[in-house]
């Protein structure tokens, strides 16, 4: 009997179910690509740093450790007299936790809706796509303030809000891709085999619409980091003194001319993470595309 791992193997075109001689494994191929592996290693490092941030940070991110806006400590002191490096580490952790989970929520729901709408068609797609329009046409602030009011300011709720707000990004793009792919003969071939619609969506169609999704995923993380900052200003999300990269950038803006590093450090960190995500995403896309295998 076919078991779960098989279906999984099928879903991931890189891992052949039927293995012949001389084919490198997915992981091996990933490592072989220098840029992808550097980006991957960097992301891994970031993840580890984020996870152990409180242990790595030289100071408590809440403590006053020096005169405000001076250059004490490894990366300087912020306007509240706190150690910038420690705050960067904790901020990284907060931002990643929020942004990654929000994007995951949006990605999973958004892609699923797009697949279903594109494949099933008819009234199902009407309901989904028109609902997505409604969601799109809603100003984020109104939704955000209402959510804090109803659900409270917990960090989980910011994940929820961003997640919901980003669903359309995935749904619309997947939907349009599915429309042009679903009439391909290999999809029909899959149907004829008696594959369940869900399996066709996940195993046959999804890998073939993966490229824009991957791009969208890696971009959305950056936007989610920023949006978290915007929302924490409305009382949703990381509340002071807990830093996030986004709020640090926002706070740094006021001292642009006095101490630009307050803006530069968190911005650079965001840029690096996003860059690594994108490079990694590009690499993944290449790996998933058999035509790029060399």
């Amino acid at each position, binding site marked *: 009997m076919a078991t779960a791992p098989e279906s999984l193997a099928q879903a991931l075109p890189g891992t052949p179910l039927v293995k012949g001689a001389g084919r490198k494994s997915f992981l091996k191929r990933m490592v072989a690509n220098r840029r992808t592996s550097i980006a991957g290693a960097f992301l891994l490092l970031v993840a580890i740093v984020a996870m152990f941030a409180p242990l790595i940070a030289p100071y408590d991110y809440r403590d006053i450790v020096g005169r405000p806006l001076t250059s004490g400590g490894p990366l300087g002191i912020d306007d509240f007299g706190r150690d910038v490096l420690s705050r960067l580490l904790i901020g990284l952790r907060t931002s990643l936790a929020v942004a990654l989970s929000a994007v995951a929520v949006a990605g999973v729901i958004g892609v699923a809706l797009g697949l279903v709408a594109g494949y099933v068609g008819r009234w199902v797609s009407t309901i989904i796509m028109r609902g997505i329009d409604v969601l799109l*046409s809603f100003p984020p602030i*109104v939704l955000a303030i209402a959510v804090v009011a109803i659900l409270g300011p917990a960090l989980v709720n910011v994940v929820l809000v961003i997640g919901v707000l980003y669903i359309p990004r995935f749904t619309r*793009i997947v939907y*349009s891709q599915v429309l042009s792919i679903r009439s391909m003969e290999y999809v029909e071939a899959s149907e004829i085999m008696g594959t369940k619609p869900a399996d066709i969506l996940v195993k046959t169609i999804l890998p073939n619409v993966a490229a824009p999704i991957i791009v969208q995923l890696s971009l959305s993380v*950056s936007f989610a980091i920023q949006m978290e900052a915007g929302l924490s200003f409305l009382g949703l999300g990381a509340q002071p003194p807990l830093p996030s990269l986004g709020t640090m950038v926002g706070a740094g803006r006021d001292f642009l001319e006095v101490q630009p590093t307050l803006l530069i450090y968190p911005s650079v960190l965001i*840029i690096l993470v996003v860059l690594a995500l994108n*490079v990694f995403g590009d690499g993944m896309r290449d790996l998933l*595309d058999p035509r790029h295998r060399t």
Partner: protein
Amino acid sequence: MRRFLVRRFTQAIVQLLLVGSIVFFLARLIPGDPARAALGEAATEEQVALTRAAMHLDEPFLGQFFGFWVRLLQGDLGTSLISGRAVMQDLPSRLGNSLELVLLALAVSLVAGIALGRVAATRADKPSDHVLVAGSIFGISLPVFVVGTLLLLVFAVLIPILPPRRFASPLDDPVAHLQILVLPVVTLAAASCAVITRMTRAAMLETLNADYVRTARAKGLVEKRVIKRHALRTAMLPVVSMTTVELTTLIGSTVLVETIFGWPGMSSLLMNAVGQRDYPVIQAVVLAAATIVILVNLVGDLVVRALDPRAEDN
């Protein structure tokens, strides 16, 4: 085609009803009192209560709800609870100003983004591709307010060629208007241009492999034309569907751009209204924005159908 449009317009009306109703309730779910906003900090609770009553906010919810729709259907968007101005008095010009920014930014980012994405895809993994990837990451990673602030700092303070002049309406002073338009449009376009660049690149990398691109080459088409008509055209599908999403992102970003550059647009109107719980204004702005978004999505879908004959047959 006609049937499609009729169907979509009917759906749009349902969508607007939905948006209007949701926003009606959502706005009122937000704690905070428009009467308090109207009276200022020093007002006593008694005064606030009296003003609430004067604003008819004590009346039954459903009554207010139906009143809102009835008035709306009569073309009355209501009157601001705070400023006492009819919403219709401000909304059109605000909407116009925002749309100007947004559409210009969208146009800029589409033109630039697609061009850059195409360059990146055709030179994939070459230096110019790397530069473009890095550049777009820059555009994506920096929040709008930082981009705006930096632009202000550079072009208004350090090299004052584009100082933050007073807002001038295009009718009164077109030259000044264009001048003040530059920075906000650039600020807005930065991120979406980068997004479109990335999407175009990814989509084109797919299509460049297609057999029909090979056929196009075999015909003897100039490589430029092979790329443009064959690889790019099919790659436009995800880009187009992304564009409509990007438009709403742009509309969202105008909140910041409008405050930074003092641009009297719809988003600052909405921000103010939300900050003051000015329900009629919130409702009107959201409905207006929703109308635009829904229309743009409709156009986007039409474009997709025009671009991809396979999409339609389903």
